[in-house]
């Protein structure tokens, strides 16, 4: 994956990498700048999973304390800085969601994500978006829903099974096969 195909915040990833490296050296100003640049996007990602602002605020707080502590672990050879940050936030949100118990049903519609994906956005990220969109389109409808609900809304495998009305084993094999197909498609 080349940096210009990464989509979200692609152009500024080098800056984020430098800010994370400086944060690892306990540079508070750099850490504040990292927060300023990324918090509104990361807050939105947390909010999509948590639904409640207060809970998403907790997730953002936990995540950034974690980023401060683990900044030294980030290595640009392992992928983009924004990808690393997003993974921390999403895992933190999924953990908190689990602790808070079952979420109310409804609202989260994976189709919204697909529609938004299709909408033209900034030119520099269009290639990565189009590729992912095309590959998601090649998946069957239900497995695609499972992937999107898991990634965007943080649904667990058990929640996916309940939501999509299939056994847990089916969800597991849908996810596994879909991820394999996505990889082949994106690399093909």
């Amino acid at each position, binding site marked *: *994956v080349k940096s210009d195909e*990464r*989509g*979200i915040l692609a152009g500024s990833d080098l800056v984020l990498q430098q800010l994370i490296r400086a944060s*690892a*050296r*306990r540079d*508070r100003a750099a850490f504040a700048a990292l*927060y300023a640049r990324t*918090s*509104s*996007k990361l*807050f*939105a*990602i947390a909010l*999509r999973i948590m639904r409640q602002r207060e809970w*998403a*605020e907790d997730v*953002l*707080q936990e995540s950034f*304390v*974690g980023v*401060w*502590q*683990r900044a*030294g672990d980030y*290595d640009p050879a*392992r*992928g*983009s800085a*924004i*990808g*690393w940050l*997003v*993974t921390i936030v999403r*895992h933190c949100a*999924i*953990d908190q969601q*689990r602790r808070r118990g079952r979420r109310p049903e409804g609202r989260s519609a994976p189709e919204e994500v697909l529609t*938004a*994906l299709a*909408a033209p956005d900034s030119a520099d*990220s269009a290639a*990565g*978006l189009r590729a*992912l*969109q095309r590959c998601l389109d090649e998946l069957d409808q239900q497995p695609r829903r499972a992937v*999107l609900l*898991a*990634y*965007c809304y*943080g649904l*667990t*495998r058990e929640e*996916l099974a309940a939501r999509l009305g299939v056994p847990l084993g089916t969800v597991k094999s849908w*996810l596994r096969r879909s*991820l*394999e197909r*996505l*990889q082949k498609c994106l690399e093909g």
Partner: protein
Amino acid sequence: MRYDNPELRERLAAEYVLGTMPPRVRRRFEQLIATDPGLARIVGDWADRLLPLDQAVPATEPPARVWRAIERRIAGDAVLSATPTADFSWLRSLALWRALAAGAGAAIVGLVLYIVVLAGHAPQPTVVAILGGHGGEPGWIAVTGPQSGQVTFAAVAPQPEPTRHDFELWAVAGGPPRSLGLLPQHPGTTATLRMTQLPPRGGVLAVSLEPPGGSATGLPTGTVLYQGKVLTGSP
């Protein structure tokens, strides 16, 4: 389970990024990532592959109180500043951490050998303290340097405690314990403070488990998990 099977590595990395791994499996997987750069790269590739799905989210400004809370929680780090330097690159050598993890006794010998071998290279660091757990295994090792008058603490063992806690370092030398700041948790990370902040030789350094950001009372509130005597410095 074998973790060197390419398909398995790919599948686990994908599920890790997707977020569908059961929490316990994920913690174990995160430990693997920490020591397996190849696996970490596969994870990074997956994070970048799925990243466009976040493009659709409209940015939302969080309230200012979130940043204030973060600042409060990282304030404890003011005393200890992590400064990995070239001279101390050996402190972060993976081989060393593996050796240390293999066995405490052998590990200390290994560390001392390391210091002797590298004495010509680094400005002769000497061991200031070894902070051992109740089982005797070292959690942190403190050595002099990288500059004169400084002491560097290196985390040497992965902490089994949940990451929602911090480890706070205390100086104990008559009177109430004095906080020296938070210690780094990941093996291979270091933090440096001034030698004069430590208790005199023979004094005790203790590490307690505290809420994130450190004790709010200025005194240890959690269990003391590690301790060690100051071995060098003025008596």
